[in-house]
């Protein structure tokens, strides 16, 4: 980059102010969303024991998510301002309502399947068939709807990365909670999906815009994520249901799903820090228009 390419090499975009809470929220929120989806499907399929375990995992993720989000706010005491409006142009506003809906359905699902309370109203928990997938994927829309090229240009792939990572973490956690073969299959399908969708994302971003995924912290987490995911999936598949090896595979895959979120998080920071990611493609567009 020469002096003609930027203002003293300074960034054009601002880096997100979001801190460590956000990648953890992506992980726990995604796990809760995919678990609630799985619980609903299991319930409708008549697998009541499996559904109970999946609802419990969903509740676990749900208990951790909102406090992380509130803690990241610049003014945590004003978190209720998120519900002041419903704003379709803001994925964070839509997401706040999704989070509320998912929280309500998961609570109902747990109340009914674990405690047998409110059986009739509890059927409303089946709305988790919509709220769950929404919770698992809206965070991808949220980061994609920014000016940062490494996020925005991956807008079609990120929801699949997040959905498959959520399936992997939900399947792993439900397997650890005694979910058996169906949970293990969900985890393995998620692992394959995540490896494939991140590979497609990085390929389609191209050498310049996708560079953060090969460098710095984002690159390290991307590598770690692929390693943990592949190792976990192979371990779990090879275990053929053997308890301890399956648990080891599940733990590795949980780590893989978490590492992916950290890699996406850091890619956004790195993608905003260097002006070349903004200048080079935009200059070409501007020249083409002139």
């Amino acid at each position, binding site marked *: 980059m020469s002096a*003609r390419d*930027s*203002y*003293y090499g300074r*960034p*054009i*975009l*601002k*880096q*997100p102010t979001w801190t460590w809470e956000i990648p953890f929220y992506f992980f726990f929120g995604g796990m809760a969303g*995919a678990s609630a*989806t*799985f619980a609903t*499907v*299991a319930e409708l*399929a008549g697998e009541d024991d499996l559904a109970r375990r999946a609802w419990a995992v969903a509740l676990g993720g749900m208990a951790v998510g909102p406090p992380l989000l509130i803690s990241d*706010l*610049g*003014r945590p005491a*004003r978190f209720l*301002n*998120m519900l*002041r*409006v419903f704003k379709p*142009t*803001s*994925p*964070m506003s839509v997401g*706040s309502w999704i989070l509320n809906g998912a929280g309500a359905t998961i609570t109902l699902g747990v109340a009914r399947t674990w405690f047998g309370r409110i059986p009739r109203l509890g059927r409303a928990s089946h709305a988790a068939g919509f709220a*769950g*997938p*929404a919770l698992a*994927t809206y965070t*991808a*829309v*949220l980061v*994609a*709807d*920014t*000016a*940062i090229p490494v996020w925005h240009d991956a*807008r*079609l792939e990120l*929801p*699949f990365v*997040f*959905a*498959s990572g959520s399936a992997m973490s939900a399947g792993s956690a439900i397997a650890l909670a005694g979910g058996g073969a169906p949970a293990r*299959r*969900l985890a393995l*399908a998620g692992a394959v*999906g995540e490896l494939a969708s991140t590979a497609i994302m990085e390929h389609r971003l191209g050498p310049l815009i996708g560079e953060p995924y090969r460098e710095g912290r984002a690159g390290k987490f991307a590598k770690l994520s692929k390693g943990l995911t592949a190792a976990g999936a192979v371990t779990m598949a090879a275990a053929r249901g053997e308890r301890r090896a399956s648990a080891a595979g599940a733990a590795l895959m949980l780590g893989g799903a978490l590492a992916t979120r950290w890699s996406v998080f850091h890619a956004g920071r790195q993608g*905003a820090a260097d*002006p070349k990611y903004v*200048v080079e493609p*935009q*200059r070409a*567009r*501007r020249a083409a*228009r002139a």
Partner: protein
Amino acid sequence: MSATIPRKGFFTDTSVCIGCKACEVACKQWNDVPEDGLDFLAMSYDNTGQLDANTWRHVAFIEQDDGGDMRWLMSSDVCKHCTSAACLEVCPTGALFRTEFGTVVVQPDVCNGCGYCVPACPYGVIDRRKEDGRAWKCTLCYDRLKDDMTPACAQACPTQSIQFGDVDELAVVADARVAELQAAGMVKAQLYGKPADTPGVGGQGSLFLLLDEPEVYGLPPDPVTSTRNLRSMWGAAAGAGAVLVAGSLASIFAGRRR
């Protein structure tokens, strides 16, 4: 009533900027913007650095050496008050709103510091103030406009490099000035901010006459409001969500066939 107020904005003619930074000072004073570091940045006469939560006007200094012929560019940057403003669109609380003057303003009593506007702005203008947690940026002196006054920066500018007025009228003035400079041999003189120059944001409320390409001044050459692609993003999310449901179904029923 609001429909009768024409959209207000700035035209910053960088060709007459003398780099006095009166705009920076006037803005800080009028808007009570906190001090944000007294650093020497070794970037010509620029020790401010960038627009952020505590800097709403920033004068850039660029030293260019064209084969021994020294050229010194100065330009006072400011929030663009976009026609299609990403910060406003992604704000989940409604703290960011469009005023009756067509400008984009944060309401400090509503903002909860979620930070979404920060990476959404394609110009890197708005930022969160560390010490109070909320997002801040140029208000185009909303309080002064309500009293029919000129924004502090434009009022303080001694060379009329910063002009305030109706955006429509400013665009006419700006076009004429670009033509004048080009006729005088400044071939790189260009306008930045009309809808034709910045279609990705639908045009800016702050227009700039630049003497070089936008990126030289630290401006994005072709900014885009990311929410324009929101439909495709939610479409992809719906597809991914459907795959998640299908994956759950398959995981549960795959075992039953045996």
